[in-house]
């Protein structure tokens, strides 16, 4: 299946990191991937958006009204980039409140800041969100992403790797169990 995914947040939150992780996981699932990233000045705390397309695409950009999945690492990004979602698409937003876009049930909240704080894992907010996102729209299996984390973090401390995997799993389970 083809998937179009928008991931956005603030510079420094790890938008590019999870985009790349998900893209590589899909690639290792023998699918074609194409992404478009924000580099340069905006990375200094500004709004960062990345586009990820899995399947048969030539264009690296997603048109408004076409995304299957939208991951917002900051609550204010939901409104900024909600227009990329297609009618049957789903959004997941890092927020303590429920669905915050008026009159829609297409946005699901996951309080990644809170979970990360509880787990003393503040560097992994992006991974909680990625876990939750793939629970919502199965772009790729969680096992493939875990495997990719192991590959990417191969030189890092075991504890760091375990924390990353834990964040991914907790985000995933939180959405699956619906709380």
């Amino acid at each position, binding site marked *: 299946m083809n998937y179009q995914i928008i991931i956005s947040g603030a510079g420094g939150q790890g938008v590019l990191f999870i985009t790349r992780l998900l893209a590589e996981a899909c690639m290792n699932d023998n699918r074609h991937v194409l992404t478009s990233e924000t580099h340069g000045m905006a*990375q200094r705390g500004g709004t960062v958006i990345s586009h990820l397309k899995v399947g048969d695409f*030539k264009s690296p950009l997603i048109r408004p009204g076409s995304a299957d999945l939208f991951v917002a690492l900051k609550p204010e990004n939901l409104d900024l980039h909600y227009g990329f979602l297609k009618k049957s698409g789903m959004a997941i937003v890092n927020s303590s409140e429920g669905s915050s876009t008026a009159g829609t049930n297409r946005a699901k909240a996951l309080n990644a800041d809170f979970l990360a704080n509880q787990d003393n894992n503040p560097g992994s907010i992006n991974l909680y969100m990625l876990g939750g996102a793939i629970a919502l729209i199965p772009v790729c299996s969680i096992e493939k992403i875990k495997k990719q984390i192991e590959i990417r973090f191969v030189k890092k401390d075991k504890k760091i790797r375990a924390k990353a995997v834990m964040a991914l799993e907790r985000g995933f389970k939180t959405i699956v169990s619906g709380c």
Partner: protein
Amino acid sequence: MSRVAKDHDRSLMLGNEALARGLVENGCRMATSYPGTPASEILSSVAAWKKSEKLDRMHVQWAVNEKVAFEIAYTGSIAGLRTAVAMKQVGLNVASDPFMSAAYLGVKGGFLVISADDPGPHSSQTEQDSRLYAMSAKVPVLDPDSPGQARDMTGVGFRLSEEFEIPVMIRPTTRVCHARQDIEKKEVQRNNVEAVFEKNPARWAATPKFRYKLHNQLEEKLKKIALWKETAPVCLNPSVQSKKAIIVSGVSAAHAKDIVRELGVEGIITLYQVIQPYPLHTQFIEMVLKKHNDILVLEETTGVIEMQLARSDRVKGKKSGHVPETGELLPEIIEKIIADFVCVKSGSKILETKPGRRPTLCAGCPHRASFFAIKKAAPKGIYTSDIGCYTLGMNLKAVDTVLCMGAAISQAAGFAHAYDDKKRPPIVATMGDSTFFHAGIPALIDAVVQNIPFLLVILDNRTTAMTGNQPTPASGKDVLGEPVTAIDIEKLVKGCGIKYCRTANPMETDKFIPLLKKAVKYSQNNGPAVVISRSPCLLSLPNEELRENYKGVEITDTCDGCGYCISHFECPAMVMDKEKEKVTLDRSLCTGCGVCVHVCPKKSIVPAESSNMEGS
């Protein structure tokens, strides 16, 4: 959906990595660059492959600026080697002098000029189209639509360059440079050609008389290049017979391919992709104008292809107003243009752009401390500034002008000359260390000769921060991390003739402000003064070092939420709690630098009691 065969050696490559891969796969022996978004990752990727593939005979280097980078790589090619220089589009402005001349003289080994454009613009001063530069210099240019095609164009470009002894430009755009795609690696070519420079003063040191001859030869080359088969435009659906045609190039081609398929019009309208926008193939121009009477051209950013078709009666594009002349040609814009052109309906909607979070200097950035001190030392000053992270000093109202690399000093001089002596406000120029090396030195010499009353603050964070922490000539290490000679900025400044030069740490606010005040005073009475504001970029430091330097602060209950620190210091770690009418600290961002202690007018920010708090 097409599945990919498992056994291929595929990897997810950034467009810039793909370009770099193309260079090493095609026997490139010398690569040079100066960092600039969106081109920065090209050279670091070449260096990474030089290391991993053990390409010992390859020379890879950051140069002090694009002009120097160009001249080094170009000369490698006239010694017979395959070479390349990479830069962003405004970097080509800096390198335009050798670029224009190199077209006349030509090359020996294949020579590629990679000039990355930034339609939008996302991270640049202009949206200029490097293909126009290629046209102006009379150099062929290739326009990739994706990382994969960019990689392949390096090989084609080298062959074209060698066959006609001419520099060849590859012009990727941001959406190619910063796209990632799964790409199958090809084998790296170990090129062991020996450098041989065949002396020929009539060519390599041509006087104007010979230049005229060379210009004629260049025109002859271009005529032949406009017939060269390998870079000819491609018809993507040759079985279709239609009076209407769409011509696409660059990333617009990638968007158009998806859109034509989705709109279901690929069977009714002829689609051509131009590989080499200049010189446009002669036979293609003839054929297209013979077969089609209604032609839509989609390209970024200027109408280079439509200019060469030169038929405003048949061509819809920038000139006719069908395609915007400014901004990025986003796929949703292209969808609407194509749908209108073929008279079908589309659901294309353009998102209204909402203001997002504006970029800001990082928490703990030494530039913020410098700007705060400059405003205290010269509160009514004119602040000229330059290109780099510190451009963001405009958020702090400490940056009044930004023109181009190196202009902060010359603009300070311009203001100084413009104002009468008695009415002249203090003038403080800010410029980063890398920018100073790049283009600040000639301007500083000029300011010394003219005895300009201004203070230059060199924001020396020991790196090229904005583009991803590349080394500067003062770093003492090269792109591979190997030790090289380090240039001493103080000696350089003094060598330019500056008599008043002080070096200080901007993070020591209580000492730094008086030092700046003295320097401002000196400059107003005596002429140019320089303060080197030295403190490393936090992004370049290892976490351990950050933790060691962590001082930590606390905000006491005396904070009345006046907002002074938010508007004058704008540290991302300081957040206004609107309900409590008090500023709070985001400890996940705070680097514990402690500068804000000196910022609060109410003294409500104090050093933390325990200095061993957890840093981020």
